[in-house]
């Protein structure tokens, strides 16, 4: 199997922003592809054998069949393409699908391209309504339910069962936006205190404004291939360590939180996804065996739930472990070094791809020195849709 394990041949992304008046979706993708050409040393994409388009929303993008349009825009015709959609997990699910394309031998190279215009194209009320369309329409959305509310209710249950506190999840809001200060492509770097978070206005209690992630415009691309293809076509490939896309897992759970009763504090699908991915590469003690991770911090407390579901710490220990600094830049397992969804931003279809880019750059040793994790050899991305209705875990390894 090792013969066909995909390598990360190259990456490219735009800066994530709350508003890019100069770009529609295809313009954003064009910028990310130009960054990929610089990253790989390629002058065009003519040798790429397959495309894979990652975007979530026909509503936000006001365009159907966007995959075909984007494929044309970046010069990949007449190669095959396919669109993958999986809510918030779209980008990670797209990578997972591309992994299977390489593993199966269907192609030797595949460009995973993701973009989204979730920024200021609509009001935040409309954005909430459009996202709520991915909840259960007649039972949740129509009574004024929002994703912030669903996540908040989960966190309330976590607090009730384990004693998790707002100060503990505020630590995530502070740290991830601090990490974003060391990422020139991040949307919202901020220097905050715990008190700033606790004093921001309540949105859906216990979550306050600074506990919530961002609406973003942006694009991100990852070129996956066999090692032989990358050596032949990417001039810069041999100038840096080989990074394998070594493992992938995916789990699912009910659409409505209430149908998970009595397990409403955590993300079962994330546990499923992690266990699959860990089994592929023989990980049994993830906290010791993973060096860097990008976690899906759609809300600050979600990171607390994630470190438990990913098996980094036992259930109920997430809040205390996070507040102790275990996952800070100088901690045992730095997470969200990019700034995460809270600081770097989250244009949905590009989010999971941007997470993979951060991990690849960390493993190459090419991250900004202020956020570079020393001797990082194995990294993980955690991405989910809805309230982890679909969850994807991808693992990358440096091989040298």
């Amino acid at each position: 199997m090792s013969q066909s394990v995909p390598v990360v041949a190259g990456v490219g992304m735009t800066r994530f922003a709350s508003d890019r008046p100069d770009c529609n979706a295809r313009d954003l993708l064009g910028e990310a592809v130009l960054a990929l050409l610089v990253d790989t040393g390629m002058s065009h994409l003519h040798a790429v054998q397959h495309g894979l388009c990652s975007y979530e929303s026909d509503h936000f993008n006001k365009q159907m069949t966007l995959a075909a349009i984007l494929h044309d825009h970046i010069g990949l015709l007449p190669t095959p393409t396919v669109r993958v959609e999986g809510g918030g997990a779209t980008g990670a699910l797209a990578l997972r699908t591309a992994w299977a394309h390489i593993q199966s031998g269907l192609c030797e190279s595949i460009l995973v391209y993701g973009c989204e215009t979730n920024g200021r194209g609509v009001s935040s009320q409309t954005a909430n309504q459009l996202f709520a369309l991915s909840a259960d329409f007649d039972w949740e959305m129509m009574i004024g339910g929002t994703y912030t509310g669903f996540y908040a209710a989960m966190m309330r249950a976590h607090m009730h069962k384990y004693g998790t506190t707002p100060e503990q999840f505020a630590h995530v809001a502070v740290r991830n936006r601090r990490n974003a200060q060391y990422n020139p492509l991040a949307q919202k770097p901020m220097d905050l205190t715990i008190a700033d978070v606790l004093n921001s206005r309540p949105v859906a209690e216990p979550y306050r404004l600074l506990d919530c992630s961002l609406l973003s415009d942006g694009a991100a691309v990852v070129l996956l291939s066999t090692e032989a293809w990358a050596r032949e076509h990417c001039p810069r490939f041999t100038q840096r360590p080989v990074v394998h896309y070594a493992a992938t897992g995916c789990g699912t759970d009910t659409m409505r939180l209430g149908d998970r009763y009595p397990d409403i504090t955590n993300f079962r699908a994330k546990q499923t996804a992690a266990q699959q991915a860990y089994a592929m590469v023989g990980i049994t003690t993830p906290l010791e065996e993973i060096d860097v991770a990008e976690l899906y911090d759609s809300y600050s407390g979600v990171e607390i739930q994630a470190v438990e579901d990913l098996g980094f710490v036992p259930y109920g220990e997430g809040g205390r472990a996070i507040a102790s600094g275990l996952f800070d830049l100088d901690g045992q397992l730095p997470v969200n070094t990019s700034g995460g969804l809270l600081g770097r931003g989250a244009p949905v279809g590009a989010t999971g791809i941007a997470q993979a880019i951060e991990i690849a750059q960390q493993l190459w040793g090419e991250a900004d020195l202020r956020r570079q994790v020393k001797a990082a050899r194995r990294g993980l991305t955690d991405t989910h849709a809805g309230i982890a209705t679909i969850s994807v875990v991808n693992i990358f390894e440096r091989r040298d």
Partner: protein
Amino acid sequence: MVMVTSKKDVQTLSAVEGDIWAEFRQIERLNLSLTQTYVHTLGKYSRFFIELEHQRLLATRCATCERVYAPPRPLCPHCVQPTAWIELPGTGTVETFSVLHFSPGSNADVAALPTPYVFAYSLLDGASTLFPHLLRCAPEQVAIGLRVRVQFATEAVEHPIHLIYFVPME
């Protein structure tokens, strides 16, 4: 479907030194409005909403595994078999909740809710799953473990799910 456009603004963004997109810094934006009307069937869930008009709160029960679904599921996902309707007493216990200060204003019923409002998940007596609902009470009053009961709306509503809401049990 109705599509309406109007010009919003034209601006010239400043080009920085070495900007490869210097030729493309004049930007025009439009306001675009899409309005569309759907015929939205409530499908096999319809009887739940119809019975609310008769002040009856229904759930579905799977005869094989005996799970009771509220909200109803016409198809039991565990047994992959059709369920059957049963009536619930309309009382229950709050298992978790959030106080929402930001309303999505998704329809006229939601837009009319004063903020903050309480969005709760309760285990209804006789059910196996949590029912998401609005809880009309002061935000300070809600807590996990609070006993609640259904109330049937007397005013006209837009979406029939608003024919019910819950209140703390006296």
